[in-house]
């Protein structure tokens, strides 16, 4: 897999929403890859741009949203390729698939999507079975009767009891968890090579979420489907993902194999995210939430976008926009658990094994003078919450 072309490659994807308040830079230069059969996580807070990124891949972004830059290639076909014309206008390149091709060749057949809200994603006036069957018929070369059979089998497979009877029932007769299973069955039944799961378990309670994750794990192994798993839940990431992209304000700020991300966390934001979730293996008095709220994507902060909330922020963070690269040797002053290997080498080695190289966007890992920069006075937006966090930290030490 290492040398061959990945299944999906997203490069410098930018999607913006042109609203009356201004241009929302929802996705701002995101790049990642998904190999065959790989489960890739897209993590971040609400508003980080995960869902928009996921939907941009399938060109499902609706007005007033628009993909303004970047390329998306899938199995060598160009799903998105935006160029700038001579007078600076945006153009879809020649290589880009037509809308019709997207519809007939990609959507459903090659890439399927599972939406966040199981209660709203099924049409209330059609039977559940009819809806699954329709998508199978549309995306696979089978007859109506065969499609019905596949649909029933798949409903059974995702754990819906009495699938023959429930096939003819309506969505309102299903619980939220059951509807989510139906959506998963829908996606799998079309036999795509890639499924984009847009927070599919967020609306469910934890026990059901656990069942669904186990199910996806089993089915993923069985069908070898690749997944892009959009979530805000680090627990889910740890459970199912192979590699992870952490997003903040439209950018991917850390990218790594799931083990590296959890055990060799580089970015202060990722670290803060991990600190803010309860972990059964550690006892803490109180959890450590990230101070403040994510700024608006209309006017993102200068320099590093996280500097307004970052506990490690210094002057330089406000000025220099970090590059997304392997962390540089020795630059990681406050870094945790560096085993001595040169990170850039480690990244190259990882790439050679077909693993996700560890990439991070943080000036701490660049030679731009972080060590000598003044510590940043907490800004107005983050000051209060930051102060609280410090106080809590102080109490805990006592």
């Amino acid at each position, binding site marked *: 897999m290492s040398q061959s072309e990945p299944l999906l490659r997203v490069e410098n994807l930018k999607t913006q929403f042109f609203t009356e308040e201004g241009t929302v830079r929802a996705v701002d230069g995101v790049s990642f890859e998904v190999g065959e059969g790989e489960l890739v996580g897209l993590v971040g807070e609400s508003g980080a741009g995960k869902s928009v990124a996921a939907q941009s891949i399938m060109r499902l972004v609706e007005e007033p949203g628009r993909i303004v830059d970047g390329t998306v290639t899938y199995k060598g076909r160009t799903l998105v390729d935006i160029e700038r014309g001579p007078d600076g206008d945006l153009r879809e390149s020649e290589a880009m698939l037509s809308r019709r091709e997207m519809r007939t060749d990609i959507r459903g*057949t090659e890439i399927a999507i599972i939406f966040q809200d199981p209660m709203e994603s099924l049409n209330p006036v059609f039977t559940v079975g009819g809806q699954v069957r329709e998508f199978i018929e549309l995306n696979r070369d089978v007859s109506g009767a065969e499609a019905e059979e596949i649909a029933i089998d798949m409903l059974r497979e995702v754990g819906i009891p009495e699938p023959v009877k429930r096939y003819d029932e309506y969505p309102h007769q299903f619980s939220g968890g059951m509807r989510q299973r139906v959506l998963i069955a829908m996606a799998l039944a079309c036999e795509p090579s890639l499924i984009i799961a847009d927070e599919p378990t967020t609306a469910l309670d934890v026990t059901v979420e656990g069942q669904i994750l186990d199910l996806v794990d089993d089915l993923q192994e069985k069908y070898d489907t690749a997944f892009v798993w959009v979530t805000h839940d680090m627990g889910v990431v740890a459970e199912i993902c192979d590699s992870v992209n952490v997003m903040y304000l439209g950018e991917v700020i850390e990218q790594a194999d799931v083990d590296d991300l959890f055990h060799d966390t580089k970015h202060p934001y990722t670290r803060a995210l991990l600190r803010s979730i309860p972990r059964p293996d550690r006892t803490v008095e109180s959890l450590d939430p990230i101070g403040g709220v994510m700024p608006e994507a209309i006017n993102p902060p200068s320099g590093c976008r996280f500097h307004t909330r970052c506990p490690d922020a210094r002057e330089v963070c406000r000025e220099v926009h970090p590059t997304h690269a392997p962390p540089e040797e020795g630059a990681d002053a406050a870094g945790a658990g560096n085993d001595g290997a040169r990170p850039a080498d480690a990244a190259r080695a990882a790439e050679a094994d077909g693993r996700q190289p560890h990439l991070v966007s943080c000036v701490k890992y660049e030679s731009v003078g972080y060590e000598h920069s003044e510590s940043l006075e907490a800004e107005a937006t983050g000051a209060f919450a930051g102060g609280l966090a410090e106080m809590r930290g102080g109490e805990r030490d006592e």
Partner: protein
Amino acid sequence: MGRAQYTIRRILQAVPVLLGVAAITYFLMEAMPGDPVSIMLGPSPSAAQAEAIRAKYGLNRPVWVRFLNYLIDAVRLDLGQSIYYKVPVTRKIAERLPVTLLLLASSFTFAILTAVPLGIISAKRRNKPTDHVSRVVALLGVSTPSFWIGLMLIIVFAYRLDVLPATNLILPWAPVGSVDGADSRVDVLAAAGRHLLLPTLSLGTLQMAALTRIERSSMLEVLGQEYVKLARAYGVSEFTILRKHAFRNAQLPLITLLGLQLTSAIGGAVLTETVFSINGMGRLIITAINNQDFALVTGTTLVFGFVFVVGVIVTDLSYAYVDPRVTFEEAE
């Protein structure tokens, strides 16, 4: 609960409603000033004459007894004798009701057939020229009184251009021989169609305009739903999304409005029939009121009430047919 059960329940629920309609109509008429006896007998009748009439029509009995008798008779399709026409009220209604129903049916058909496509196109081409035109048309339609439209249609098409008839409505079921120049049923139907055109436009424009607005907004809402997005994500074409995935859901508010519009359409029919001199229920009720024909007023009002209740039941049942959640929620 299945649809059959729901249907039966819904029809049974209509019985008390109809009783209520009958009671209100009857007692309102009772409370109205004016004495039917004096109308029947003319000015200054003798006391003995009046007494005899009262005894003959049972008017000397208490009002609740008369009401009960009226109800029992009504079930037997006897709504009393018209004082003005001097024939049974039911015979008069049987003669006039089909005309009004024809007018209502044709104007609703016109309204639905134009409003649904207009609304869908408007929603699909949101904020584009087509949408603006259809919205302005709809707004004008809603705000123009139907009798004015009727008068304008007569002036333009019947008087100035002289292309369509404005009076002497020909009914599609009229005997072939009774229609001038008609040799077959087809000729009669064609003539009836020509005659119906202006009254239909006059009565239907208001419905059409209101329905277009509802169809547009409801279609827009459905097109923004997650399940429409899902269909798109699975490669369903835009046309199929409109025709199948969005259409049925978008008709629910339209059906509700149709039921409600039946009242305004019945009111509109009274005006339209007057403007086009059509002998339907509308003109009948006006004649009845003008002549203080108590039995006829009560009878026609009751029939209008009945038509409305039937309309509401049909609305509810089609709702249940379109949206499976309706019968389900009733069972909860």
